[in-house]
Structures are given as C-alpha cells and as structure tokens.
C-alpha cells in the first residue's frame, strides 16, 4: 500500500527498499538538511543469532497511522519532504526494514523530526515482527510484554 503526494511518500512494500529513490525524492532546493534513518536486521543480539525477521502489518491502519505521524511532524517542524517506508515479509540480516527521511531548511529540525518519526512509528504503527533464530525457532518480538507467562 502506498500514499504519495509531491512532498510526502508513505509506503508498505514487500521487497528491498529502493533507497536511492527515497534520496532523490527528499532532495529539494528548499531544504538544507536531510536526515535519514534506516533500521536493519541485526544478526547478533549478545549471543543470540537472528536468521531473519518477518514483518506483518494491519496494512490499512498502518498506512493511516503513518499518515497521522506525517501530519504531526509537518505540524511541528518545517518539513519540505517526508518519506516513511516499511518493508513487510522476510528481511534477512543486513537488509533494511524501515526507512524514515525528512528534508528541512536546517539540520537540527531534520534530526528532530526524523527521530520523532521513527520513535513514534515503533510505538504506534500496527506492524509486528517475528524473529527466526539460528535454530529455526520463531518468536514474536515483545511477545508477553509486560509480564511474560510461559505457556
């Protein structure tokens, strides 16, 4: 699913994120600073090896929440371009699952808006990840929060 205007691009897609396209979209003579955050699948967490991550979304609501976050960011900062993309399905180690990009006149606001968007996305947008460990076991990340009950 996708929403695209001349200044905002929200996207849920099931293949590798085309980062160069995001950068082209974000570049504009109206901006002086462009902050980009990408989340990638990390292979090792202490001694635990992740073979891959699988992302599932409640797609229409995820897009709607991404749109709310985009509106709120635009309300708070002078954003000239905004990208909020999330990959769904399997994401192997080293590959990008999420991309947040903003272009603003000055750099401080680009960092702040980018940080706000990724932090809020992680709290608000209905997307879940299932981790496949090196032994083939799968686990939904944050399953059992706040008090895990072994079953």
């Amino acid at each position, binding site marked *: 699913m996708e929403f695209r205007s001349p200044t905002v691009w929200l996207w849920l897609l099931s293949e590798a994120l085309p980062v160069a396209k995001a950068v082209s979209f974000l570049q504009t003579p109206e901006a002086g600073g462009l902050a980009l955050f990408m989340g990638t699948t990390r292979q090792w967490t202490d001694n635990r090896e992740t073979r891959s991550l699988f992302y599932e*979304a*409640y797609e229409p609501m995820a897009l709607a929440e991404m749109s709310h976050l985009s509106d709120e960011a635009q309300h708070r900062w002078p954003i000239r371009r905004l990208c909020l993309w999330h990959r769904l399905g399997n994401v192997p180690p080293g590959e990008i699952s999420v991309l947040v990009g903003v272009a603003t006149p000055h750099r401080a606001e680009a960092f702040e808006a980018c940080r706000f968007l990724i932090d809020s996305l*992680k709290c608000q947008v209905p*997307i*879940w990840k299932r981790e496949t460990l090196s032994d083939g076991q799968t686990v939904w990340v944050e399953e059992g929060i706040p008090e895990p009950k072994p*079953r």
Partner: protein
Amino acid sequence: MHETPYIRLRVLLFSVLRERIGQHELEITLPAPATGDHLLDYLAQQYPVIADYRSVIRLAVNQTYVPTSTELHEKDEIALITPVSGG
C-alpha cells in the same frame, strides 16, 4: 418491531494472537449494547492467549485506536492490537 438484543462483530487478529488462535478473524455475537471492554472480557474467557495479553491489548475501531469503553456497532472493523514491534 423492537431492536435486536444482540450484535455480531468481526474482530481482526494479528501477530501472536492470530498465530496462537489460528485464525485471522473472529465472528463474535454479544448482547447489545456492547463496549470494547465487554468484547475483551468475552474473548479473554474464550481464548487464554487473549487473557494473557489483555492488559496490553489496544483496541482499534475502523483503523483508529479507541478507548476500550467505546461502544461497538455491527459494521465496525474491530482489531486487537498487541504491542507493536515495527521498525
């Protein structure tokens, strides 16, 4: 004619709830009027995994987070949102 005393609700499941319950959608009939809390109480009795997650489930109606005190209607798109982990 008088109002039907029951409503039928479609409830969408995702992530761990979908996997543990083995369905991505439930059809539930509740006495009317019904709120999100009534629905969650009922589901927690039927499905132990929903009881486990009850305290951290957020309710979405028509793709928007709502308080669990919200009254539900037959055509609403209801979803149970366990803690999200995108990013």
